[in-house]
């Protein structure tokens, strides 16, 4: 599967995140198409979890809204499968270990393949535990994205050596959410990755403005934005399409 690799060929990649089913699955379906038309290179589809320990308040609340509206993993897969032909960019799923494990890891990855989802991001499954996922991932050709954090230091090379797709560089301590200032030395993190493997590096956690994206893209191959978009969706509900598209467009322009 080369979807992820291709996503980094059109300038620096813009990777928006949305929580599936927030405020409902019909809106998510429209957002997938619209974001891909307005500059998204990969879309991260969040499968909501009741207890998302890596998320800040904005995405926690989105997860709860989605679950409260009756979203399930099966309904998300059905929606993605239906809309996939209309979505031009690559798709990744972001969720926690438990929703995957309890659904059945093998079944989950086969569904990803069936729906044209190229990669999975699982923030509570570090390098040491990736064997819980890797077998099923490779069986169905789903890339398992590795994360590195500001505290990873000596672990970066070990993680990068076995990384697939792209490396997710966590740019802030703590949970997801908008930060005024990004102080992490992203250049150094990326350099350490590239010293052992030629693989794209995308940065996320705290990024929200085109200026921040432009600055970070000096060092990284792509920029991931979640909370800033989820905030727009929370504000506008079902009418979020236009403001989200404007935002995605402005972010991609900053990266070209």
């Amino acid at each position, binding site marked *: 599967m080369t979807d992820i690799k291709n996503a980094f060929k059109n300038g620096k990649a813009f990777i928006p995140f949305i929580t599936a089913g927030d405020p409902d699955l019909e809106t998510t379906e429209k957002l997938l198409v619209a974001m891909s038309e307005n500059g998204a290179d990969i879309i991260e589809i969040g499968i909501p*979890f*009741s*207890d998302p*320990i*890596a998320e*800040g*308040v904005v995405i*926690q609340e989105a997860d709860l809204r989605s*679950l409260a509206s009756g979203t*399930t*993993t*099966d309904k998300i897969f059905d929606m993605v499968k239906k809309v996939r032909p209309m979505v031009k960019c690559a798709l990744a799923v972001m969720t*926690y*270990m*438990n*929703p*995957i*494990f*309890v*659904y059945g890891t093998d079944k989950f990855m086969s569904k990803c393949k069936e729906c044209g989802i190229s990669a999975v991001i699982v*923030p*509570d*499954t*570090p*390098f*040491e*535990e990736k*064997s*819980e996922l890797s077998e099923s991932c490779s069986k169905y050709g789903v890339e398992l994205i590795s*994360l*590195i*954090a*500001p*505290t*990873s*230091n*000596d*672990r970066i090379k070990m*993680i990068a050596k076995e990384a697939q797709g792209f490396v997710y560089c*966590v740019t802030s*301590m*703590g*949970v997801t959410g908008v930060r005024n200032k990004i102080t992490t030395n992203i250049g150094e993190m990326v350099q350490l990755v590239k010293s052992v493997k030629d693989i794209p590096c995308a940065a996320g956690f705290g990024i929200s403005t085109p200026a921040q994206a432009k600055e970070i893209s000096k060092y990284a191959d792509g920029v991931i934005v979640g909370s800033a978009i989820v905030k727009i969706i929370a504000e506008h509900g079902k009418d979020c399409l236009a403001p989200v598209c404007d935002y995605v467009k402005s972010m991609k322009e900053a990266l070209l």
Partner: protein
Amino acid sequence: MSKGKFGIHGGQFVPETLMNAINEFEEAYNHYKNNPEFVSELNTLMREYAGRPSRLYYAEKMTKDLGGAKIYLKREDLNHTGSHKLNNCLGQCLLAKKMGKTRVIAETGAGQHGVATATVAALLGLECEIFMGKEDTIRQALNVYRMKLLGAKVNAVETGTMTLKDAVNEAMREWTNRVSDTHYVLGSVMGPHPFPTVVRDFQSVIGKEIKAQLMEKEGKLPDVVMACVGGGSNAMGAFYEFIKDKSVKLIGCEAAGLGVNNPKNAATIANGTLGIFHGMKSYFCQNEYGQIAPVYSISAGLDYPGIGPEHANLSDTGRASYVPITDDEAVDAFEYLSRTEGIIPAIESSHAVAHCMKIAPIMDKDKIIVVNLSGRGDKDVAAIARYRGEDIHD
């Protein structure tokens, strides 16, 4: 590569941001656990500050009243701060200090672990912040003020069910935010490796004392050791010494709330399925999509949707058995022990007392049951009065 396994359970399912912190903690623990200076410092605190060894008390009136097995109570309620939680806090905070940490954070359900952490933080001069579900700050208002008196900051967690699970979520989030100067004093035998092992080791003093004390009093091993189980630290502490003594039956008492067939319960072994959450593979109350269930128990300390990985394995292998105890049964036991022995037990520990009341009468008089009385019930008095519909103006 996965570490800290108990059978299929355990592991280290945490964000990458925390991996170096838990590795560092593991290294420090392995370095200090047999270090004579550390061990002597900890033992001195256990003796002089906590008041160990805690008594093993022969509950003669209760034994006669129930008319069967001889009942001993392991009096962890007599520990300083009123529960077994202090054993672990002394160990972990001392370790944190050796590691150069200046701040500790902790989750708490009933407030016992929060109080114990705040206490040791005050003693050792560490900054302290506690995360407690908002619902629990109401149920256990007295403990909230105790923590404040001890100099800790208490954060009322308003996400999810606003109980213990959400307090753990929030403490983990705070740890990822600030790891360099902060140690997370996890209060139970749960979470990512090495916590289940470290907490068990610091609590295993309970079982070691039971064995020695009973040997002195009766010259033999107990037939049954029982304890209440939420995450499972007092039970693991009581059981661990006896795992190799196959004749000793080990029984964990889970919180069944309004009943195992009512959605309002927290009986993980009875109703849970295999999952991966809060850093560990274990059993959890959850739905078919892996969404964690909003559990319930009258006891804030047992109101947790999971169980420590070593307990999950003891259940798998059949070495320990786990029984559900309802709110009603626990409250009856709370009142029974108060009237019969003049000991007011924590509502958590009352779950174990309740099971003892069920099985003691059908056991022979030459058999011995040890109930781990993990905490005292002062904190629960107002809640039990409310449960009984009495207004005590609390």
